[in-house]
Structure formats: C-alpha cells, structure tokens
C-alpha cells in the first residue's frame, strides 16, 4: 500500500457531472447524506436539464450536482468547485468554467471517445492537447474498472454501465475520508428485493474506494473536520421536503386535516410526492386534473374545515390566479406554495429564479391583497411554511408562500425542531348559532368567523360576489363595496402587528444596506460577512415577509446611505421598496437560472461602496 498524505481543509466544493442518465443526482445525494452524518455543514445545488434522458454525450444533456461542505458555517453551494468529476467530455466542457484554477478533475477516460468528443464540440481530446494544464487531471477508466469489478456476476452490460457512478462515489469517499456505510445501508433498503443489484452496486462502490487507496493515482487525501453547529439532533433536508413537513406540522398543531390539491409541475412535484407518502398521518393528497382544480379543490376542502393547500410553480400560479381571488373574497384559509422557476411561460423549468414576486403581490384582478412569505434556505422552508399556515388560519386568508428551484432541490443539515415547543395554531370554529353573521369581524384581526358545514344552525352561503359587510349577503351598493375593499386591505395590513420586526445582520446604520429576500440569503450573507471582515460598512437585511412588510422597515432603510437589492429578476423588490419608502434603492440583477455567486455580490458591493466614497 502506498503512503498517502492527509491534508486538513476547512471547506471543499465538489461537482459531479455526467449525462442525465449517469446517476449524478443520486451520487451527489449519497455523498451529501454521508457528509451530513459526519457532521459537516453543507449546502447543495442540483443542476439538471428539463429533459429526462437527453441524448447521451450532448452538452444540453449534462446533469450536475454540486456540494459545498466544511468545518465552518456553509451558506451557499459554493461559487466555484475545487473538484470536478466529469463522466464525459460534455460534462467537462459545461463545468470547467466553474472549477477553480489548480482544481482537480477526475475524468472517466472511457467516456472520452471520438463520438463523445465530437458531440461536446471538442476538435481535439482535451486530455491530450495540454489545454487542462492549469488543473490537476486524474484520468481513470471508470467504465472498465466497473466492468472488471462485476465480471464474474451475471449482469447485463447496460447495468454495468449504469453503476459506474458508484465507482466515482467510492473514489470521492476515499478522497475525503468518508465511510461507505451510509450508502451501503441505503442500497440494502433500496434493493431489498434485488440482491444481485445490491451486490453489484456495493462491489462497485468498494472498488472505487479500494482503487483510490491502492493505486498511485491520488497522492493526497483530505480531512474536513465536523462543523461547530448548534448542539442537537440534525437531519439533512431539501426545501421541498421541508415545505411538505412544514404543512404537516401546521396541520398537527392546528388539529386539522391536511388537504393538498395539486397538479404535477417542476420543480414543485416533490412536495406532492412527499405528502402522498403520509397516509398513515391522515394526509389527503389529490392529484387534480389541472392547476385550477388543484387550488379550487383545496378551497373546497378549506370550506369543509380542512387545512387546504396547493403547491405549484409560476405557470401554475398564473392559472390559479382567479381562484386566489375567490379565496380572498370568501375569506377562507389557504396556502399557495410557488416553487419559482425560470420564466416567462414554460421558461426554464428546472432552474431557479425570483421573478414571481410581483405576481404574488399584485397578480390578480381587483384589489386582492394576499400575505406573501418567502423562505430563505432549504431548512427555513419548514418554518416559512408553518408561518404561512398560521397566518392563513388566524386571518382567514389565502397566503402565498414563495420558495424557488434552488431551495426546493438544495439541501442542508437541519436542526430538528422541538415539536412540543411549536405554537398551537388551532382555529376557533363557530358553533353557536346565536347572532352568527358570516362576515362579522374580530375587532383586532378583522378576521371573519369560520363556520363549517355540518354545524347545526349555521347554514350560510358564501361566494365570489361582493358581500354585504357583516351579513355576507350579496350586495352591490357602492359604499359597501368601498368599505369591503378597505376592510380586506386593512385585515392584511394588520398582520404587520403580528410578525417579527426586521433584523439587520451587522451595524444598524452605515454606508450600505444589502436587502434581499428568498433563496439569495446564503450568497448575500456570505458576501456581506466577507466585506464586513474587510472592514467595509455593509449590513444585510433579509425579508421573509413581503406583504405586509415589517413595521420597522422604513426606519431601517433610512439609516443607510445606500441600499442595494440583489435579485434574480429585473428588479421587483427594489420597485416595491422605492415606491413604499421613496428610497433611492438600487438593484443588482442577473437572471441566469442559477443562484448568485457570493463573489459577484462582493464585487458589486465594493463597486457600490466606491461610488459613495
């Protein structure tokens, strides 16, 4: 056995890349779970094409999975990767620009045949023409080694080819000192009834590990110590799973039945999948015939006293718009979760974007105010979802919950909350028929009473036509309409009394405040912290509540000379801030379907500061 040096590093970013059929998402997820259990902090970014099995070897068919992990706090999936695992030339070509200079490339040499080189647009083999000399290239014939590991098993060549990702995974486990057990245990469960596949994958995984240990190809392995996280029990969680669990937690804490009406749409479908698993929890999921039936069935369920929710992405919200207006009018609780993706129209279904904020705030006919809440990290999706339900139930209103493709598929370690300490959010159903008026309002919240079908003596009718104040009867009188418009707006505004004040990370006044919302949290926080360490006067404010806005927001904004609002859109929050507070806020806008890199934010922060000085 050769002597290997062990180097300690604080943080590493690895990117697995290959054909969309190469199992890169699975490889990345396995690496993530093992890494999480080892106690590193981490953040991940799956990046895959919209096509399920795009033609092999093509540039547009490349699927990638990036994981950034370390012994320090990790807020982003990493601006650049330190290690790139490329299963073919296309994967190399697409991802090389994200590799740091001097970074490591591990290539499957078998993938670098003439056909694949041509498909990737390489005139010459980059492994041979010296174009990669700024990097450390490790050439491994992964396909052949995988086949050798399996040669005495009676397994089809197609399957052999498909399991080569486990060889790559085994190599990376060796390189970063990760144990194989988590993945082997996972394989045992997954292929419980297919012992030959279990055996094959386990063998290939071990072969990758042993190959790295034995051969001279890698001289260094790395040790990444566990991160100093808040003590407690953790699990790894994606944003979509956190949304699903947030809904379940809210339903339990509200003592209500959970009803999801949803239509499959990328990147939100995993919430539907996840909730469909929990029949034993009494969760009812209804895969509707379309987006409209998704939301209207949820409204029907809410009318019946369930916690009605619907999950979708931007194009789906467009279709649900009229029904959101109905929920505003009938004042029933409902949560609409929009996992934002690249738009307009079908746009970039598998990529992230933040361009649905104005749609959430204003995208309805008539004056139809709706609370809007945005999650900031994958695990924060749990809390944001719970909060959306709390507000919906307390204020009898639809609530728009915004996440995005990055949060949805990205994952991070999550300190499991103490469920007993979460608040009870049970609604108070009316049962006493005496003096019941469907649109009489609570003095403090302006919320209307909730009487559910089945309650004797409370038979009443609701609907989308304008209601007479208090009685709820259909009413077309001009002054009543004006009053109801104001009451509905005032009800939503009063939620500002019931949400936390906005908090600034850093000094409460100074040269520059960077204001963000949603999934850009990690990138902004990383950039601002680095700038603060450099001694620059920069603070960060991240908004969870987009409607109503926190009561102290105007005051905070007034304490800074300049306000910068980075968004993955053409400037939506910045518009709101400028119009609400008449502040000269400026936007930083890139709409590439990818999260911001903290280095690009640092650059714009520095440029903005220079502009002031």
């Amino acid at each position, binding site marked *: 056995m050769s002597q290997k040096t062990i180097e300690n590093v604080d943080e590493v970013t690895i990117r697995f890349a290959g054909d969309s059929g190469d199992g890169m998402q699975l490889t990345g997820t396995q690496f993530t779970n093992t890494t999480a259990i080892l106690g590193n902090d981490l953040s991940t970014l799956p990046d895959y094409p919209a096509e399920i099995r795009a033609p092999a070897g093509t540039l547009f068919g490349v699927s990638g999975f990036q994981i950034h992990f370390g012994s320090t706090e990790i807020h982003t999936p990493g601006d650049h990767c330190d290690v790139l695992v490329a299963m073919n030339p296309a994967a190399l070509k697409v991802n090389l620009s994200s590799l740091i200079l001097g970074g490591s490339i591990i290539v499957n040499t078998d993938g670098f045949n003439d056909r694949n080189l041509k498909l990737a647009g390489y005139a010459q083999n980059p492994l041979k023409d010296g174009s990669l000399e700024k990097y450390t290239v490790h050439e491994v014939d992964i396909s052949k080694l995988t086949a050798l590991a399996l040669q005495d098993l009676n397994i089809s060549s197609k399957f052999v080819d498909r399991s080569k990702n486990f060889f790559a995974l085994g190599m990376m486990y060796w390189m970063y000192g990760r144990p194989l057990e988590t993945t082997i245990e996972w394989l045992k469960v997954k292929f419980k009834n297919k012992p030959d596949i279990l055996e094959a994958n386990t063998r290939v995984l071990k072969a990758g590990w042993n190959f790295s240990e034995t051969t001279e190809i890698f001289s260094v392995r790395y040790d990444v110590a566990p991160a100093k996280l808040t003590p407690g029990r953790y699990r790894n969680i994606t944003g979509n799973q956190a949304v699903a669990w947030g809904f379940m937690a809210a339903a339990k804490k509200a003592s209500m039945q959970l009803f999801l009406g949803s239509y499959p749409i990328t990147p939100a479908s995993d919430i539907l999948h996840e909730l469909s698993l929990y029949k034993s929890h009494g969760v009812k999921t209804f895969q509707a015939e379309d987006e409209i039936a998704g939301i209207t069935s949820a409204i*029907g369920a809410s009318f019946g006293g369930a916690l009605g929710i619907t999950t979708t992405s931007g194009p789906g919200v467009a279709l649900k718009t009229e029904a959101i207006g109905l929920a505003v009018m009938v004042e029933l609780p409902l949560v609409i979760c929009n996992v934002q993706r690249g738009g307009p129209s079908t746009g970039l279904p598998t990529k992230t974007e933040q361009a649905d904020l104005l749609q959430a705030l204003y995208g309805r006919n008539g004056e139809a105010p709706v609370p809007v809440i945005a999650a900031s990290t994958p695990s924060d999706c749990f809390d944001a979802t719970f909060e959306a339900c709390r507000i919906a139930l307390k204020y009898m209103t639809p609530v728009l919950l915004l996440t995005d493709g990055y949060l949805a598929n990205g994952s991070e370690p999550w300190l499991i909350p103490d469920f007993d300490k979460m608040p009870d959010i049970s609604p108070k159903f009316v049962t006493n028929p005496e003096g019941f008026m469907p649109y009489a309002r609570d003095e403090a919240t302006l919320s209307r009473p909730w009487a559910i079908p*089945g309650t004797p003596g409370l038979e009443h009718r609701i609907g989308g036509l304008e209601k007479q104040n208090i009685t709820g009867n259909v009413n077309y009188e001009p002054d009543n309409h004006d009053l109801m418009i104001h009451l509905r707006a005032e009800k939503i505004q009063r939620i500002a009394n019931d949400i936390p004040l906005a908090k600034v990370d850093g000094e409460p006044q100074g040269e520059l405040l960077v204001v963000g919302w949603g999934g850009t949290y990690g990138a902004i926080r990383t950039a601002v912290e680095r700038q603060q360490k450099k001694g620059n006067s920069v603070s960060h404010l991240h908004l969870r509540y987009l409607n109503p806005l926190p009561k102290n927001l105007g005051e905070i904004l007034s304490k800074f000379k300049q306000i910068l609002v980075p968004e993955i859109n053409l400037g939506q929050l910045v518009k709101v801030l400028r119009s609400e507070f008449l502040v000269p806020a400026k936007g930083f806008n890139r709409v590439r379907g990818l999260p911001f890199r903290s280095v690009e934010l640092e650059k714009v922060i520095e440029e903005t500061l220079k502009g002031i000085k």
Partner: protein
Amino acid sequence: MSTLVEEIMKGTNEIPVPKYTAKDFSSDQDVRWCPGCGDYSILAQTQRVMPDLGIPKNKMVFVSGIGCSSRFPYYMETYGFHSIHGRATAVASGLKIARPDLSVWVVTGDGDGMSIGGNHFIHLMRRNLDLQVLLFNNQIYGLTKGQYSPTSEMGKVTKSTPYGSVDYPFNPAALALGASATFVARTLDRDPKHMQGIIKRAAEHKGTSFVEIYQNCNVFNDGAFFPFTEKETKDDNVVFIEHGKPLLFGKEKDKGIKLNGFSPEVVSLKDGKNSVNDLLVHNEKDTTLSFILADMTYKPHLPRPVGIFLAIDRPVYEAEMERQIAFAQEKRGIGDFKKLLNSGETWVVQ
C-alpha cells in the same frame, strides 16, 4: 385529538333528523331569476325532495359556479358556496374528499359545466365521487345575455352568431357516459313529478350522479324544449326510459323503439308488424345500451330519451381514499409527526 370536524364526521352529537317540509329548505334571500324562468321549478322540486332524503340540512352543501343556475345555493337553506366559473365540480370534489360525511350537490349550467368547466366535469365523472351534479341545460348563455352555448344547436342565431352557429353541440348525457359516469339521467323543468323522482334517485346513488335538466330560458331561448315539454307535442317527441320497461311512446302508447343492429328505430304497434315484445327493454345497468339511448339525442327521426340512462356501482373515490388511509394506519400505526421528524438518517451534534 378531538376536533369539531372529527366530531361532526363521526356524528357523535347528531340529533334525529327533524321532519322537514319543502319550506325548511327555502332561504331568506329573494329569488332573482327572471319571472317565468325554468329555474324556479327546479328549485321547487329540489326543495320538495330534500325532506325525503333523511339528511339533516346542516349536512347539505350546494356548490355552484357562475351563471343563472349558479345562483341556486343562495336560495337553499343549507350550506352553500357560489364559486367561480366552471369550477364548482372541483370545489365540490375537494369538499367531498375532506368531508365524506356531507351530502354535496353541484349546480351548474351548460356554459359553466360543459364549456369553461368541461375538464373538471369529465374528471369528476371518471373519479366517481359520491355527489350529485344538476346541470340546467337551457342551450344558451343567459347571464351574459344571450350568446350561444356548447349545447346550442347548429345554425343557432344569437348575439355572437348573427349568421348562425357553426359549432356542433355537446350531448351532455353522452359526454358524461363517455367520461365513465356511473349515474346519468335527463329530466325536464316542466315535468315536476319526473324531476322529483330523478333527483331522489340521484341522491340515493353511491357515486357521481349526473342529472341533465332541460330548462327553459324564457328570455333568451324561449321554447327551446317545448316539443319535449308541452302537452300537445310531448307524447310524440319524448320517450321516457325506465329500467326493465319497453321503450313505448306516443299519445296512445302506440309507438316504440326497436333495435335494428345497434341502431334504434321507431316502430308502430298498430300496423301488426310489431308488438310490445319486439321493443327494446331498458336496462339501466347496461353501459352499452346507455350509449345507444343517449345517442338518440339530436336525431330528428327519433324521440328524445328522458329518464335514467345508467345507474351502476363502481368504487367511490373518497371512500377508496379513506380505505387507503385506514389501511396505512392499520399497517403502520397512526402517524406520529414527532417520530417522523426524528426518523431515518439523523445525527447528534454535541
């Protein structure tokens, strides 16, 4: 946990169903349909049938979309939801899945149910939730003041078709059958007795009951169904189909329907060539026959079939869902969210 919803669903506090009269189902709202509208009759027959169903009115919900017919829930002293255009079927589906204990009724029209709500309509039929759909078919858009509808006949001259409609109309009964409905019926606004019987059967059916009601819009499409509803013409133009009975019609019951291959044809019982024994006998359990009968609609040489085309049993969606939940709970125990949070791969940071 014992919540109000659960208590109601279990019926723990249920009292014996009061002896209702039709008046108990009349709300305090002024009925605002045009004088002479066929909707009045449908409302009256529905209110008349309700006391016979043995269901407390607090357990009844009428859900509607948009259109003249969709004002219906406001006039019923039950729970009601006047939703948005075309979506009553979807709202009702969510309600029924969440609350299988309720008696849910959808009230819709030919525009609301067949046009903007066509998609939800067909999916409701195939899912077979246990609810009732009353479709008021007046072959016109009334609330928007007189445009042709998806059931208007070809050539129909309306405000939006000054040169006559070139759309071929839907046959709602056939559409429902094509979408695998388990109960499909047709009745007439001007035949109160028949309508009461059909509504009652619809309420009793386990599964989605679809009832098409020919309804006269005396303002924008007056007399569209007169051949089928008026004393002078009715007998010769309508064949009432009844389970187990031969298809007889005519003032003197001297005509009948006989099958020639799969094609129905009118035969006389007077010319000595055919007797009652040669006539087609209706079987409401026969899906093939139901298609043949529904297909008689719009055929000028055949009488219009009215009655129950099909009434068959098939698993009910929400009952199947409840069964899955019960199965999962029996197999895995009732879900414990706290346990779930801590299940699978977790680790402790000291």
